[in-house]
């Protein structure tokens, strides 16, 4: 593979698609990591399978089906969050497994086609320009919403009690974040696949968290990592003849592991905190 051929045809489209998810996923993922909602990302990636399956079965747009499933998860999460007896984790796990089960049952009753397989495991090389434009548009909206809500997200994520006191609608902010999470999963579907989407959502942002003292820097570093790992994963997957989605996920995990080990000494408990 030469540099020239990487910038032509399907590879150009793949690189652009990987760059889009590389920007959008860490921008949203920053908040998912900070709010310790990574398990919700997992639920969303599994839960959207139900939307994909149902949409496919009725001949509707599978991406809209996935987005619809994401919105359903957001609504259910808000409805069930009133339960003080159960934590969010339990509710999230039940919802994710239930929707995943629905997806499996629906898909088992239809002929599994290549397209459905691409959505599960991704195939960035099969993306069309119209799909890339779709990803670019909804990804730009997601990034715009995060930038608009940046202060509200910071307040609600750091100290929801004080945030409520000064007028932040904490539940609404949470709901918007869940919908944004669904958007990231939808953009990821044909790029890295629904199964691997959580890796782009969480891993670059988690890596950035290790090296960033401020939110702004965490977001910027997360985006730089996301784009590098996305584009690098496409090129590496091509060079190694490996699936691009899995290669992107593995590359992100390796970068995380190296960063984790390299920053271990300065994250020791005694490093920052003065006595007193």
């Amino acid at each position: 593979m030469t540099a020239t051929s990487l910038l032509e045809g399907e590879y150009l489209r793949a690189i652009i698609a990987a760059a889009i998810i590389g920007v959008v996923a860490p921008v949203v993922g920053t908040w998912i990591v900070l709010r310790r909602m990574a398990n919700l990302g997992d639920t969303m990636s599994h839960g959207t399978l139900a939307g994909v399956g149902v949409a496919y079965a009725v001949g509707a747009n599978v991406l809209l089906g996935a987005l619809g499933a994401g919105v359903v998860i957001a609504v259910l999460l808000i409805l069930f969050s009133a339960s003080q007896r159960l934590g969010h984790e339990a509710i999230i796990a039940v919802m994710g497994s239930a929707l995943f089960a629905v997806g499996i049952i629906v898909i088992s009753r239809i002929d599994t086609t290549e397209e459905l397989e691409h959505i599960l495991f991704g195939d960035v090389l099969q993306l069309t320009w119209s799909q890339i434009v779709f990803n670019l548009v909804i990804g730009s909206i997601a990034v715009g919403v995060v930038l608009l809500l940046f202060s509200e997200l910071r307040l609600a994520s750091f100290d929801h009690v004080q945030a409520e006191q000064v007028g932040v609608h904490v539940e609404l902010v949470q709901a918007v974040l869940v919908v944004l999470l669904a958007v990231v999963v939808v953009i990821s579907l044909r790029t890295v696949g629904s199964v691997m989407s959580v890796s782009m959502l969480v891993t670059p942002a988690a890596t950035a968290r290790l090296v960033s003292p401020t939110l702004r820097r965490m977001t910027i570093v997360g985006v730089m990592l996301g784009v590098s790992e996305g584009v690098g994963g496409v090129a590496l997957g091509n060079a190694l003849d490996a699936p691009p989605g899995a290669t992107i996920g593995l590359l992100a995990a390796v970068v995380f592991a190296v960063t984790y080990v390299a920053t271990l000494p300065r994250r020791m408990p005694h490093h920052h905190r003065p006595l007193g």
Partner: protein
Amino acid sequence: MVQDVSPRSTVLEVIELGVNFGDAVILEDVSFAVGRGELIGVIGPNGAGKSTLFKAICGLVNHTGEVEVNGVHCHSRTDRMDIAYIPQRSDNDITFPITVGELVVAGRRRFHHWYARPSLHDRTEAVRLLALVDLAGMADRSLNQLSSGQLQRAYVARALAQEASVLMLDESLSGVDQPSTAELFVVFERLVDQGSTLLIATHDLALARRRFPRCLAINGRLLADGPPDAVLAPDVLDRTFGSAAPA
């Protein structure tokens, strides 16, 4: 035993406040009034309802009874923005990537629409308030670079940025060493002199006796309200702490 506060100076009035969680009665029939510029210690054992009382006053948990702030009956949470709740130290993740300056500016949110960015005035105000709590020059530090006492002072600065007239500090002195506690009280007394009202929940009875002109003893209900000599008398402590009453 309930202390009178003249209506002229009353900033906070709690009337027959009660809180239930399911079938459990956490607080019942709590009534007291607080005047402008008071420094009040709220004592009681773990589980007595001190945090719940603060959260109920701030409208963060459902309650019966009434809360009035500056003579205005509070119907919603936004009616209570003149009260700031400063959480227990363990409630927030201090590794969160937020600087001390950003923390203080967060208090200004009540003066803006949700989409607005903090103004230059907000930032200038944050710098002024950090100086007021003896944290000048620390605006760019992360929270985990502060000592426990400094962290509490940063939260106080945020409450002041909110322009709250009543500050409720929930166990803020727990785990703070003696020199840092002394520094905090220098700040508290300065704020009281400027007209702020502070209610501070504490387990430390020696500190309450030494530092607070007025104390409230709580255990499910208000058991005593008055100067420390009266509230920390052996019979009141027996009723407040039961068999665990300090000698």
